C-alpha cells in the first residue's frame, strides 16, 4: 500500500508488519513518535503484541533480552542518551546471541542539550556486537527495519540489529512510503537457544578464562557470516518487493575521480552535490555507507575520497574516515560536518570536494582549522 509517513512512522509500520511478541520501549526525542505509533497500533488492535512501557532504556533492553530469551520476536527503539543509558544491556543482548531489533534515531549527546542529528550515539556502540545499518529515506527506514528481523534471526547470525535514522532530518520528515505485506519473508521467529523448561539450562553463567574467548570468537564468526546473509536477504527483498539495497549506495561512481562518502541523509544530499559538481566538469561520485557493522570491504581504486563524518572520536578523528583509512589504505579528506544538526547543504558538500586536501581534516564552520 502506497501512502506517506514520517521516518518514525515508517519504522513503526515495519514493526507492525513483523509482528513482534514483545515490544519494550521508553520515549525520547526524536524517537518518541515510534513508541507512540506502536502504542496506537496496540490500542487499536492493529498489532497484537505485549507492549511493555518500561521506566528506562536500560530496562527496555533488559526486557527485550528476557523476552527474546523466552523465544519471541522483540523490538525496541531509542535515541542518543537513551542508547547510552542502555549501553550495558546493548552488549548483553549481543553476547546473549539474541536477535533483537532496535531502531536508533541518531541524535547528538549533551551537554549542551541538543536533539538534532548526529551519529556519535550509534558509533559509540560499534564494539558491542550489534549489526548497524544507516538509512536515508522514509522508505528505506521501513525496508531496513523489516529486513533487520530476517537478518538478526538468521541461524548463521543470531546477533541483534540496530537500524539508524537521522533525528528530525529523517525521523520527522514526511515522504512517500510503500508498505508491503511481508508474508513468509518474515517467518515465525526461532531462537534455537530459547529457554526450555523441559530441558533446563543456566544461561550466561560464570565463564572462565579458558572458555570465555571462544564465545567472543563465535560472535565475530557470525558477524563475518552476516555479510553473506545481508546480501541474500537484500537480494530476496529486491526480488519480492522491487527495491534493491547494498552495503553502500553508489551514485555516478563508475567514472568518478573523486568519491564522497557520507552516512544517512547527508549521503543522499551528497548525490545532489555530485550532480552540481558534474555540471562544473568535476567527475564526482558518491558512496553512501549503509552498513557500518559488519564494516564493508570498500575499494576506491586509488581515487580521491572525501569523507563526511557526522561524529567525532576525540583525540583521534572522524570515525568513518578512519575506518576507511584503516580498511582501504586510502587517505581521505576528512570533513567533520553536521554535528548536532549543523546545517550542511549540497552546496556545502560540493565545496568540500572542490577544496579537498587528501589526508587532511576539516571541521566545517570552524575558522582556522585543518
Amino acid at each position, binding site marked *: 500500500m502506497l501512502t506517506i509517513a514520517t521516518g518514525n512512522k515508517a519504522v513503526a509500520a515495519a514493526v507492525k508488519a513483523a509482528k513482534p*511478541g*514483545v515490544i*519494550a520501549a521508553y520515549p525520547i526525542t526524536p524517537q518518541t513518535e515510534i513508541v507512540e505509533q506502536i502504542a496506537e497500533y496496540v490500542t487499536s488492535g492493529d498489532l497484537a*503484541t*505485549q507492549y*511493555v*512501557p*518500561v*521506566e*528506562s532504556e*536500560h*530496562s*527496555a533492553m*533488559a*526486557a*527485550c*533480552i*528476557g*523476552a*527474546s*530469551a*523466552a*523465544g*519471541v520476536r*522483540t523490538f525496541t527503539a531509542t535515541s542518543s542518551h537513551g542508547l547510552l543509558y542502555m549501553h*550495558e*544491556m546493548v552488549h*548483553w543482548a549481543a553476547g546473549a546471541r539474541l536477535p533483537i531489533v532496535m531502531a536508533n534515531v541518531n541524535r547528538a549527546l549533551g551537554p549542551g542539550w541538543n536533539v538534532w542529528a548526529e551519529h556519535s550515539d550509534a558509533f559509540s556502540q560499534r564494539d558491542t556486537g550489534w549489526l548497524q545499518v544507516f538509512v536515508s529515506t522514509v522508505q528505506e527506514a521501513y525496508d531496513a527495519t523489516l529486513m533487520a528481523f530476517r537478518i538478526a534471526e538468521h541461524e548463521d547470525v543470531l546477533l541483534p540489529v540496530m537500524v539508524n535514522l537521522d533525528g528530525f532530518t529523517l525521523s520527522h520528515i514526511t515522504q512517500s512510503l510503500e508498505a508491503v505485506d511481508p508474508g513468509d519473508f518474515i517467518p515465525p521467529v526461532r531462537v534455537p537457544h530459547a*529457554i*526450555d*523448561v523441559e530441558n*533446563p*539450562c*543456566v*544461561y*550466561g*553463567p*560464570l*565463564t*572462565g578464562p579458558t*572458555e570465555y574467548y571462544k564465545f567472543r570468537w563465535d560472535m565475530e564468526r557470525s558477524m563475518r557470516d552476516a555479510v553473506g546473509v545481508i546480501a541474500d536477504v537484500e537480494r530476496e527483498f529486491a526480488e519480492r518487493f522491487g527495491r534493491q539495497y547494498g552495503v553502500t549506495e553508489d551514485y555516478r561512481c563508475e567514472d568518478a575521480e573523486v568519491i564522497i562518502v557520507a552516512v544517512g541523509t547527508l549521503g543522499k544530499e551528497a548525490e545532489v552535490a555530485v550532480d552540481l559538481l558534474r555540471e562544473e566538469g568535476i567527475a564526482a561520485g558518491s558512496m553512501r555507507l549503509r552498513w557500518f557493522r559488519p564494516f564493508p570491504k570498500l575499494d576506491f581504486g586509488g581515487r580521491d575520497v572525501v569523507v563526511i563524518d557526522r561524529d567525532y572520536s576525540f583525540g583521534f578523528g572522524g570515525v568513518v574516515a578512519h575506518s576507511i583509512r584503516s580498511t582501504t589504505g586510502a587517505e581521505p579528506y576528512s570533513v567533520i560536518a553536521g554535528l548536532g544538526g549543523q546545517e550542511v547543504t549540497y552546496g556545502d558538500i560540493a565545496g568540500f570536494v572542490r577544496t579537498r586536501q587528501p589526508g587532511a581534516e576539516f571541521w566545517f564552520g570552524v575558522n582556522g582549522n585543518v
Partner: protein
Amino acid sequence: MTAIPKEEYLLKCTSACAGCSSSLCLRYVTKAAGPDTVLVVPACCTSVIQGIYPNTAMDIPVYNIAFAAAAACASGMSNAFRALERDTNVIVYAGDGGTVDIGIQALSGAFERGTDFLYICYDNEAYGNTGMQRSGATPLGARTTTTPGGKPTPKKDLDRIVEAHNPPYMATACSAYPLDLYKKVKKALSIEGPKFIHILAPCPPGWRYSSEKTVEMGKLAVKTGSWVLYERENGALTINGPSKAAMKKPLPLEDYIRGQGRFKGITPEALEEMRRQIQMTNARLSREAEGIC
C-alpha cells in the same frame, strides 16, 4: 505439617559457602515453584552458587542478567511467556544490593506495570559476592569492608518502598523458617501480578559467625524483633506466628547482636538507636495488624 516435595532442584552440590542461607532458601523456593519456572538472577552470590560453565547445580532454567536489570528482564520474559500462552513462573532471585540499590528502579518499574512475576530479595545485608561491602540494606553499626568503623546510617526500609506499589502479595521470610518460606512462595505464585518476598539471609563470613549458627542467627533475628515475619495480601497485614510471639515478649537485642563479629565495637548509642527503630517498627506493624492505624 506441609508436605514438602522430595524433589531437589539444587543438585549436589553448589559452590556456596558452608552454611550458606541463600542455598537453603534456593532449595525451598525451587521446591515451591516446581520445574515450570525460570529464575532470573542478577549479579549476586547466586551467580556463583550455580557453578561455573559448563556445569551447574541448578536443575531449573536460570537466566543470568546484569546487576541493575533483573526486574526488567523478568518483566519482558513474563510478557513473552504470556504472548506464548504459557504460565511459566518467572522469579527474580536477587541479593540485597541488586534490589535496594542498583536494581530498585527496575523493581519499581516492573511493580508499577503490574508485571506477573515474583521478586525475591534474599538479604544478607551487604554485597556478599564481592567480599562484603556495605549496601543500602546494611544495618546501622555493622562493619563491612567499606564501613570499617560501622555503618553510620540505618538499613533502607525496602518493604515500605515495595508496599508503596500496592502489590497484591508481599511477605517477609527468613532462612531459619524454610517451611514458612515454602508456603509463602507457593501462595505468591498462586496470585497474578507482581509479588514480593524479602528473605533475611544470615551470612556466616559476612556477619562473622561460625557456619553452624546460620539457623540460630535467623531465629534470633526474629525472636528479638529485629526481623518481623509477615504477609501483606492486598494490603492487609498478617504477622506470622514466631513474630507474634516476639512482639509480645522479645528476646534482648544483645542476644542477636553479640554473636556477630560485624557488630563488634558497636557504640552504645548506635545500639540504642537500633533498639529504638526496632521498637518503632514493631509497634507500627502490631498496631496495623490490630487494625489501629
